[in-house]
């Protein structure tokens, strides 16, 4: 889907030089972050977000498409990019009244002095073109206004219905280039949509783009559904349903809408999560009051038991290399975090702070484990896989169920207020500085991030 836009022969050399300059400023930002109160391996911060201008994208020919006129799409693509970058916390988009009209020739030849005048450090220009092949092309160009030079460019060809994905991929390219972090905008969220009072709550599995667009419900609300999690390959979702009054883990195929029971056993199965290769599911099974962790091949077969204690062992989550599993257990009294090898060997406790620790999820980068810490309220925190470097990121009545973005830098979780109110989805970055509510049509819990789409 990505292709290089042919132009500017000296572009690569130019980009290399500017890239080094950008790395220099990123390093300076890191120093600033390190001098603050929060430790960690975070590059950048939000104390001084980058000013970036994202004017409407012109079209070489205004053409009607199933997704709308290409002129309108040019405006909308720019707004999607603007929202993505603003919501990341790293960028401060130039207000729309200061944006200038851009014509096609200017897309590759920006009026740097004019953009400098409105205070833009960086500039995103592009175009939207309807192709003869029934697809949409979005060209995306990133410029350094101060240096008066191009930084990066890419083109995205998508089906008309997927025009927002082209915008997300452009935003991902800009985010990755300017922050040094991995991309994450072109991805989806699966979660539990909640409506109705607390004692008669309707719960449905729902999916949406990371920015809340393209929302749809996957289940109809007749059965309680909980804890949906995307497969790392994005093809299926594993979740728990009370279908037929039997709480069990099911696998939902995104393309076909078909679902099937994962494990056929006369016991409750719950807390499912995929292995990084999408071939196994680690889950808990409650047998006569004793919950242990098992794993089973997605293709079928007998579950293999990984823990064997009289306590509650649950919430297993694989390390990104698949070699280890972090989970929670109350074997020592209250809930604490433990790490074991993927075959169940070498189980050892990693959390030792006051209160209880629950719902660990291993970062896709491997460097951190996110968790819910209970004591007073519920708060979201992160620690290294050896239990060191614990940091608490949120502070509210009940923040629960962290899920990592594909880039391992942003965490989604759900926040439940006191009393009879609906929960909602929130995101926090690993510094704990950028906390933001995600828009959902109804109440929402149990978010799980898909991989980057491709």
């Amino acid at each position, binding site marked *: 889907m990505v292709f290089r836009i042919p132009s500017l022969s000296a572009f690569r050399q130019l980009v290399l030089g500017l890239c080094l300059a950008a790395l220099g400023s990123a390093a300076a930002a890191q120093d600033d972050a390190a001098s603050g109160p929060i430790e960690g391996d975070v590059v950048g911060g939000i104390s001084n977000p980058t000013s970036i201008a994202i004017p409407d994208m012109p079209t070489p020919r205004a053409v009607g498409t199933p997704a709308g006129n290409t002129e309108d799409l040019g405006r909308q693509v720019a707004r999607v990019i603007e929202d993505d970058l603003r919501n990341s916390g790293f960028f401060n988009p130039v207000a729309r009244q200061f944006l200038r009209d851009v014509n096609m020739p200017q897309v590759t030849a920006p009026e740097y002095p004019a953009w400098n005048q409105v205070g833009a450090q960086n500039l995103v220009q592009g175009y939207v073109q309807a192709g003869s092949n029934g697809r949409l092309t979005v060209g995306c160009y990133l410029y350094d206004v101060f240096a008066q030079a191009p930084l990066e460019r890419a083109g995205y060809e998508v089906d008309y219905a997927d025009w927002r994905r082209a915008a997300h991929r452009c935003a991902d390219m800009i985010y990755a280039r300017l922050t040094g972090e991995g991309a994450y905008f072109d991805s989806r969220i699966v979660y539990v949509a909640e409506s109705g*009072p*607390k*004692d008669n*709550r309707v*719960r449905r599995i729902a999916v949406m783009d990371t920015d809340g667009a393209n929302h749809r419900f996957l289940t109809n609300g007749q059965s*309680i559904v*909980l*804890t949906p999690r995307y497969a790392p390959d994005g093809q299926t979702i594993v979740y728990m349903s009370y279908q037929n*009054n*039997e*709480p069990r883990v099911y696998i939902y195929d995104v393309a076909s809408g078909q679902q099937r029971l994962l494990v056929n056993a006369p016991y*409750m199965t*719950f*807390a499912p999560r995929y292995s990084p290769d999408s071939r196994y599911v680690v889950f*808990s099974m*409650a047998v*006569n*009051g*004793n*919950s242990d962790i098992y794993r089973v091949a997605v293709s079928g077969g007998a579950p293999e038991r990984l823990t064997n204690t009289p306590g*509650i062992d*649950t*919430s297993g989550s694989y390390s990104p290399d698949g070699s280890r599993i972090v989970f*929670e257990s*109350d074997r020592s009294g*209250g*809930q604490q975090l433990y790490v074991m090898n993927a075959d169940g060997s070498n189980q050892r406790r990693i959390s030792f702070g006051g209160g209880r620790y*629950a*719902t660990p999820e291993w970062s896709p980068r491997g460097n951190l484990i996110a968790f*819910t810490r*209970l004591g007073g309220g*519920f708060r979201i925190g992160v620690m290294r896989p050896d239990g060191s470097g614990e940091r608490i990121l949120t502070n509210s*009545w*009940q923040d*629960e*169920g962290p899920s990592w973005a594909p880039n391992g830098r942003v965490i989604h979780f759900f926040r*439940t207020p*006191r*009393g*009879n109110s609906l929960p909602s989805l929130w995101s926090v970055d690993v510094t704990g500085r950028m906390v933001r509510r995600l828009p959902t049509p109804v109440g929402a*819990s*149990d978010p799980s991030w898909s991989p980057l789409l491709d």
Partner: protein
Amino acid sequence: MIQFSKTAILLTASSALALGACSRSAPEDLPPPPVGTTGPDTTPTYSGPTPGSRADFLANTASDTIFFETDSHDIDPEDRAILDSQAAWLVANPNVRVTIEGHCDERGTREYNLALGERRANAASNYLAARGVSASRMTVISYGKERPIALGSDAASWAQNRRAVTVVPM
């Protein structure tokens, strides 16, 4: 303090039961005798609930619900008295199958509470089995913290939500 609130809840529950029993036995609800019926009435007069029904279970046991301490599945003496009355009824009605629901308050995480609710339902089920109720007649199901009966975020509400409920079919 906790003992007190548990008793208060039980009292509330029993008065609700008493009220329910009153309305069910109201004589004006009875249908008139069929026309043309003559001779002595051979069926004994019985104005209570249908034997073996949920109403019968509720009318003849101390409660359908036992309550738990925070993060605990221990059965205390108060719970035992309730479960003993349930066991007696279940032994007397051997064809009735029951579901035992385990529930938690909102102060645990979702997945842990599913496991804790299952522990509570099993604690009740195991006690009933020890009192002579066949395990094959009992199904346990945990709802974790997903089905509270009290909606508040306070100690009294949490105490009501930490429970195991023996459900007889209608």
